[in-house]
């Protein structure tokens, strides 16, 4: 998109303004992601109120915005905006003001590396899961600063609890995340998701009994790390009034909540990618259609539709996870701080370690899994589908896939059928590229455009950057070949 825009801008004669395109695209990306948190939080808060209402034998919001109170959260938000922004006299004013933004920014930046569908990720990192874990742990800063800066003893208690809890739970959480990484042989979330395509038996939770076990540990640790009941000790309202939130009001308070609901979705989304196949549905509908019709799943309109379907899959799974969290919150009492830490160190860590070794042996001695007992071979919407995820070196897999793609395009280009068409190059350029399934924009003759595109790839703005670049190179080399 950035390439397209910048090319367009340059073609329109606005030379020197090419950077504007990148800025616009960056803004669009940021707005999209911000919306995931903001709209997500609005929806989740409404959902929480509705679900808790139903759990507690009452209706929940019913008035604002029609029968189901759709707009209740929005109304709450407006109310919060109009609240007086209070700050205690004892507070450290700078840290008090900055703390909500720190918490929010940490929760927000984690979404950068979270893929929403195959390849639909703002920042495609090959260490995505590691990055997520690191950023997720930073949310505690906001809480800690809020607690300290409030100048209230209850806030300080809440902050210290939160710090102890988060620091402890990073250990089992990290161990839980290592297991899918070990099975898939990569830390790239997109790749982990794609390796689980096919039938639902291919999902990692059904990989072996240990992954099944570790999912529950992961989910418990996830709840603890995002500070939800029964681990919501930092804001335990019956003990600490409201913990680190005691002195906050208005929009700053709601920022903390947006961060909390954002991380809830993050944790359940991560669970969906790591254990429930991510954007792959239980049945590879798009894979079957693709096999039947021959429509490409790599690029083109059908691929976009398939990815959109994947997006819906993924969001459904994430929302389900959030729903379970809400359900748990309204059913259980709260643990005590020592019990929370005990659970982490005495139960979660050993279980995670045990499962780690278990998975290692299970895959090492190639025990059967559900998938291998099935006689059907599910069609996949990915060419690198091998029937089951297994311990393997990620980059080997990656190489095979990318190379095969490139070979195809090169062979097409070098093939006798293609050559005559390429001779009347400039006029046919567009059609030619569409045949290849690559979207090439702009005039490849202009060297500056090409450099710009390269920079896009270089800056890693998005993972698709390579495709236009390749296309550019192909067009160039075509000329060279002629």
């Amino acid at each position: 998109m950035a390439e397209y825009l910048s090319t367009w801008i340059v073609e329109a004669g606005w030379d020197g303004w090419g950077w504007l395109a990148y800025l616009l695209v960056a803004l669009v990306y940021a707005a999209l992601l911000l919306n995931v948190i903001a709209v997500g939080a609005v929806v989740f808060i409404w959902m929480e109120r509705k679900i808790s209402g139903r759990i507690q034998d009452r209706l929940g919001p019913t008035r604002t915005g029609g029968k189901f109170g759709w707009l209740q959260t929005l109304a709450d938000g407006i109310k919060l905006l109009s609240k007086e922004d209070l700050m205690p006299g004892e507070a450290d004013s700078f840290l008090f003001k900055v703390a909500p933004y720190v918490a929010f920014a940490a929760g927000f930046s984690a979404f950068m590396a979270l893929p929403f569908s195959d390849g639909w990720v703002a920042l495609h990192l090959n260490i995505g899961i590691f990055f997520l874990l690191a950023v997720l742990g930073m949310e505690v800063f906001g809480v800690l600063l809020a607690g300290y800066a409030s100048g209230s003893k209850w806030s300080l208690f809440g902050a210290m609890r939160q710090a102890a809890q988060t620091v402890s739970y990073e250990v089992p959480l990290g161990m839980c995340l290592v297991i899918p990484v070990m099975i898939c042989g990569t830390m790239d979330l997109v790749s982990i998701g794609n390796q689980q395509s096919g039938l639902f038996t291919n999902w990692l939770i059904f990989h072996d009994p240990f992954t099944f076990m570790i999912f529950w540990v992961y989910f418990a640790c996830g709840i603890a790390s995002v500070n939800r009941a029964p681990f919501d000790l930092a804001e335990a309202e019956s003990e600490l009034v409201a913990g680190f939130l005691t002195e906050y009001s208005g929009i700053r308070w709601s920022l903390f909540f947006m961060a909390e609901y954002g991380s809830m979705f993050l944790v359940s989304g991560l669970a969906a990618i790591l254990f429930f196949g991510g954007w792959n549905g239980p049945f590879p509908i798009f894979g079957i259609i693709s096999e039947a019709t021959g429509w490409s799943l790599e690029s083109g309109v059908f691929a976009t539709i398939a990815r959109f379907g994947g997006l819906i899959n993924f969001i459904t799974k994430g929302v389900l996870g959030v729903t379970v969290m809400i359900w748990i919150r309204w059913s259980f009492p709260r643990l005590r701080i020592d019990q929370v830490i005990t659970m982490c160190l005495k139960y979660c860590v050993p279980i995670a370690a045990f499962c780690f070794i278990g998975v290692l042996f299970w895959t090492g001695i190639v025990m059967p899994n559900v998938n291998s007992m099935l006689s059907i071979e599910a069609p996949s919407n990915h060419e690198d589908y091998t029937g089951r995820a297994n311990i393997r070196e990620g980059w080997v897999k990656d190489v095979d896939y990318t190379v095969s793609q490139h070979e195809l395009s090169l062979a097409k280009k070098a093939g006798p059928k293609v050559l005559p068409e390429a001779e009347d190059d400039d006029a046919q350029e567009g059609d030619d590229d569409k045949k290849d399934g690559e979207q090439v924009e702009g005039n490849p003759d202009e060297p500056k455009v090409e450099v710009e595109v390269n920079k896009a790839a270089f800056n890693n703005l998005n993972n698709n950057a390579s495709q236009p670049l390749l296309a550019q190179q192909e067009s160039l080399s075509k000329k060279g070949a002629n």
Partner: protein
Amino acid sequence: MEWLTPDILTEPVGLSHFLAVGAFLFVTGAVCMATKRNTLGILMGIELVLNGANINFVAFASPYFREDNLGLDGHLMALFVIVLAAAEAAVALAIALNYYNNYATIDVDKANELKG
């Protein structure tokens, strides 16, 4: 239109820029260590110093800047530095804690006797 695209933003940055950042962090850390009287402040200075050194390692390891880069060695060295910094921080904090227990302060200037 020159003002839209100043040279400083169109030229790719080189190794020197990264080294300068590393040097800045290093010096800031060192000054921090020298001026702070607070045990924890000194510890933070050390973190900055190590961080500056790390940036140097990683910059030298990057193929963006040099053909004959450090490669894996630079990365691994940086990793070891990070790990050792974590270990060092743990021990230093334990010492600070003990010190605080004994002197009821974390002002290093007050530590003028060896007896615990």
